[in-house]
């Protein structure tokens, strides 16, 4: 039976689809077009000031030392951030799932908390904790006789400090995903393994981890995409410094687009980022497929 008119479904999807088209799909096209132009503030005021310059932006951006540095930094974030996030959130999920007492449920709340809080507020708080003179971290280190660490002042340590903060924020959501996956594993598998005399470690490596493969895959893809777009923490805490050592590709794009108003140049940078994300995601899907062949 069909009692509704043909236009009804379109009226329902209309508002959402128009907004998505206008602010998600159409912008891709615009980004591609302007990445081949030299549009800046003058071009924004008067379109006759814009000229088509072909792939010049793309050629220039790969000669830009700050862009190259930001790629290096972003790779650093991904290489250290992704495994840390997976290890911490999986470890905590396993411990919470292992616990039988009621109190273990409360831990879900505690570890989830950082991920719902405002990134600016959190960055402000951590800047204070990291303060070389008045910060809590150096004070605590001082109590056990360790000299003060320049958390945000040393180029390499600063990257690590930002990663620590971002991992702290990322644990919650991923832990919940792992917990949901863990609860989906049938108890009978473990009962059978225990009858065969398998110890905890064997059960973990032979049953739990293999059955969590899909969850691990999902978390690693979303985490990696998140780290490639790493932005707020360096933007609020270090402004990309010292010496551009914490500038990420996303921060580079923001700075060129909205602080220097080089819209075309920034759009070219954003397309490089987009293509990198697509390629990395495709590689991960390939690897995942190969693994399931066994």
């Amino acid at each position: 039976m069909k009692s509704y008119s043909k236009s009804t479904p379109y009226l329902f999807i209309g508002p959402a689809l128009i907004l998505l088209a206008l602010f998600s799909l159409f912008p891709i096209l615009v980004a591609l077009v302007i990445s081949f132009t030299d549009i800046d503030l003058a071009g924004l005021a008067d379109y006759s000031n814009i000229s088509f310059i072909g792939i010049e932006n793309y050629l220039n951006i790969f000669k830009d030392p700050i862009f190259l540095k930001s790629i290096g930094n972003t790779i650093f974030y991904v290489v250290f951030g992704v495994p840390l996030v997976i290890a911490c959130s999986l470890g905590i999920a396993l411990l919470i799932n292992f616990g039988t007492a009621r109190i273990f449920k409360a831990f879900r709340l505690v570890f989830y908390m950082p991920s719902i809080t405002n990134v600016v507020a959190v960055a402000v708080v951590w800047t204070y904790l990291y303060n070389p003179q008045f910060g809590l971290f150096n004070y605590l280190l001082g109590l056990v006789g360790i000299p003060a660490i320049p958390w945000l002042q040393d180029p390499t340590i600063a990257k690590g400090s930002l990663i620590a903060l971002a991992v702290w924020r990322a644990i919650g959501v991923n832990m919940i995903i792992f917990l949901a996956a863990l609860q989906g594993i049938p108890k009978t598998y473990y009962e059978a393994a225990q009858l065969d005399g398998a110890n905890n470690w064997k059960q973990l490596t032979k049953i739990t981890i293999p059955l969590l493969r899909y969850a691990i895959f999902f978390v690693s893809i979303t985490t990696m995409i998140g780290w490639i777009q790493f932005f707020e923490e360096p933007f609020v805490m270090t402004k990309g410094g010292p010496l551009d050592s914490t500038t990420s590709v996303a921060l580079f794009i923001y700075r060129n687009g909205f602080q220097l108003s080089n819209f075309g140049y920034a759009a070219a940078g954003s397309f490089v980022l987009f293509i990198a994300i697509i390629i990395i995601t495709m590689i991960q899907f390939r690897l995942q497929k190969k693994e399931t062949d066994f």
Partner: protein
Amino acid sequence: MKTKVSDAKKAYRTQQWIAGIVLTLGGLLVAIPFIWMILSAFKPESEVLQLTPTLWPETFTTENFIYLFENMNFGVYLKNTIIVVLCSFVGLFFNAMAGYAFAKYKFKGRDKLFYLVLATMMIPGQVTMIPVYLILNQMGLTNTMAGVVLPGLVGAFSIFLFRQFMSTIPDELLEAARLDGASEFRVFMQLILPISKPIMAVQGILTFIAGWNSFLWPLIIANDESLYTLSVGLSLLKGQYGGNFALQMAGSTFMVVPIVIIFIIFQKHIIEGYTISGMK
């Protein structure tokens, strides 16, 4: 044999304790920034800058919070943030409508349009950021509340979740309502929305959190301080009062504590929401 069983039980209990202790230590580490933030917010500036920090405020003061509202326009930022949150609920309604149509109507191009919606999830924010700014500039909406709110109004993931949930509602229910002569919109408002309460609760909370925390877009599009949201105001505070940590902690506390309270009240729904979305 008996001793073996009791041995195993003992070992199991020890393991439980170890897990609990490890989690407590980890939880304490996770909670330290929050504890430190809230306690520092109530300290006077001089106490925060003491070289031997105090854990509990020696002199308890609320003057940091008063300063934020009297000298820093936090009242305006709060009003703007609430407007953003309220508008995002309009967006949530659009998402629910779209999710419903994708779940319960057959129409030409449905699957293709749905894939298109899903595809938008993969587009990184940095790519659309500049074009959306240019589009809004063309529409004369930069530096307006509409410009702050419009781009984030609808989201593919939310539409997807609504569709997943609403496709489980039996068709017979809709047929019955139609036979009673209800219009399509009325079916949606008076039948579908009440049934969808669980998913509405989850998405309502997530929408609230996202709206309350929105930072980058308001920062880009609003040049006028009268349009700043709380997080933009807070980042401004960090720039201007970089050395005044007590004031910064008060601002952060003001942003974080409401979310934490709302989260604690509704946490069951959020965590269950992940299980809903985890189902296929």
